[in-house]
């Protein structure tokens, strides 16, 4: 006798096959899931950027807002139409930005990842003192070149770097008559405003002639913290081989107490 209590209409597994999932429905479901995931991360992105924008807007407005409408800047048609009102608003907004020192410090810290050799409060990061936005080296006519003496043996070049890190290049030139002309041709000093004085001395003397020079001048000038000056050689010594890279400025050691 059959046990009706345990009766199952499915006598064998797989006898009644469940209908297969429609492929299109599966694709639609996958697309929906993908769209939902994209929308989810899009929402996170929008939320993050909007929060930053709103936070920065409120922060900058509340800190700058205290002085943004000062007594002298009254809104009326005349001040608005002349542009004075909006100009004054901008000026007061820009001059009262929040935490200027901290911002500067933070920006300097962040700029450490910009490259190699960045330092906090690094003056070189600013537009280099050697450059001038208005100056275009190429459109300026060359300084008049002095007549070069092709007789290289008669040119003596002396390069001296003094305690201040100032490099003085002196050239003694003997003309055909045997008369010696001395020219201090360049002063090149690495600029570092943190340095007050230096103690180390580096001296390099280069002679390019084969005969001993008749007259050599070596001078050291105490220069009181000049700005960086570009080396300009007024006399060309033909036998001097140009270096591949401009020499690094000699950085003087820390002053000894």
């Amino acid at each position, binding site marked *: 006798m059959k046990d009706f209590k345990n009766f199952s209409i499915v006598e064998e597994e797989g006898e009644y096959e469940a209908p297969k999932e429609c492929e299109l429905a599966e694709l639609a479901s996958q697309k929906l899931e993908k769209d939902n*995931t994209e929308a989810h*991360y*899009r929402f*996170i*992105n*929008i939320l*993050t*950027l*909007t929060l*930053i*924008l*709103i936070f*920065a*807007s409120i922060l*900058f*407005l509340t800190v700058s807002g205290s002085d943004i409408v000062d007594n002298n800047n009254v809104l009326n048609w005349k001040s*608005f*139409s*002349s*542009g004075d009102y*909006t*100009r004054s*608003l*901008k000026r007061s*907004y*820009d*001059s009262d*930005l929040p935490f*200027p020192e901290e*911002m*500067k410090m*933070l*920006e300097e810290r*962040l700029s450490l990842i*910009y*490259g*190699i*050799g*960045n330092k906090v409060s*690094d003056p*070189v*990061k600013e537009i*280099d003192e*050697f*450059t*001038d*936005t208005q*100056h*275009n*080296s*190429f*459109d*300026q*006519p060359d300084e008049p070149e002095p007549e070069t003496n092709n007789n290289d043996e008669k040119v003596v070049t002396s390069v001296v770097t003094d305690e201040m890190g100032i490099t003085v290049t002196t050239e003694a030139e003997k003309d055909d008559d045997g008369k010696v002309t001395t020219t201090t041709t360049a002063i090149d000093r690495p600029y570092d405003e943190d340095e007050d004085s230096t103690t180390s001395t580096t001296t390099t003397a280069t002679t390019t002639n084969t005969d001993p020079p008749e007259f050599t001048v070596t001078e050291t000038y105490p220069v009181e913290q000049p700005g960086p000056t*570009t080396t*300009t*050689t007024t006399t060309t010594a033909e036998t001097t081989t140009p270096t*591949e*890279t*401009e020499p690094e400025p000699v950085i003087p050691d820390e002053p000894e107490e």
Partner: protein
Amino acid sequence: MVYSDLIFLLGLFPIAAILSFLDRSAEYKNLILILTSVLFFSWGRPFAVCLIFLSCIFDWLIGMAVSKNVERRVLCTLLLILDALFNIALFLVFGHNYLFDSIKDLSFESTVLPLGMGYYCVRGFSYVFDIYKGRAEYERNILCLLTYMVSFHFMMAGPHISYSKLEPSIRNREMDGRKLNDGFVSLVLGLGKVVILAPVFERIKLSGLNGHEITTLGCWLGMMSFFAEGYFILTGLSDMAKGFGLINGFEYPSNYTDIEADNLFTGLVRSFNTTIVDFFSDVFACRRVNNPILKALLILLCGAAISMWYEAKVTFLIVGLAAALLIAIEKLFLGKAMLKLPAAVKYLYLVITAMVIFGGLYFDSLYGYKKWLLALVNVNTKYMLSVSVKDGVMKNLTLIIIAFFIVFAPAKKFVLGLWKDLSRRSRRFYGFTKITQTVLTAFIFVLSIITLAVQTTA
């Protein structure tokens, strides 16, 4: 006011965006956009500057007259020429006011001059040109035309988009999460290019070209930095414009394309300010003419017009003509001859031609240009590299590498391809890449704001 003003970025723009979200109707959004734009242009300048916007009434009337006389082609052509002359006059007086320094009545103070007059006048003429060509009907609602003309979105660095393409969005536009997200991302990336990347190249440019010591590598790196600075400013502003547009419901095309070696010098020229180059090519019918000689002539005229649009200087004109001449030569025979060369050779060709031709833009005299060209091949230079240029490069090495991956199309495609593959690997990886993108974008945004704040207080 400019896009990188903090008071705009953290003041006017958020307020305008919030206000425009308050109502879904396009009319309301257009009104907010017009008011914001008027404030944007009059900020710090006399309000009367905005009277320039009334000039769009002239374009509107001419457009109407052209539309009503479609059958009478001669009259339509005369009207088109009249509109062109009007916009050129407007552009010269307000956009190139420096030409009138000696004429007291026409010379203005620099603060009076409005921004983006070049793009404004091109838009005005383009509207009438579209009607003349039968691509658009004249606009009955002048407020719609005013929205197109004065919108601050594309006033600073384009893109230029014809009225016929923008008109549907002006009448009816929808906002959704995708547009908002893409708009924000585009805005932040553009801001990063303008605030973080462009100044790096400005520093190297100044060290290399404006330093008192001329060095060989300084000349190369300085000029490349000059190009990179211009590129990042334009593409950054263009990205920002695209972002503002998307946040407001508009979809603008990019105003730049990737620099591809296969497209040679022609592609290089078109990669910068693409929409303007396309517009001038369309006006001068450069692509519709089949006769090679006539085509070359039209390309030369187009080159001269674009260069004068940038700056009314002899150097710009010469550079424009030289660039157009090379494009014409490429179209005639050089392009086909170079087609099978390796990509590396084509890139080398691009670098050399760009340096030699566009390098002229930096100099006021032939003397300076010649001196720079000689310095490139180590003539009359004492040193290879100056300390200031080396410092400029080393201290910004990370940013320069990032800039390289942005500009150099194969490298950019390679990195983006890897990134896409990674995101497709699994759902987890997809989430990882998306969150990383969000973190990076947020970092760029914060860094840009901090940098701007420091630059403003400095």
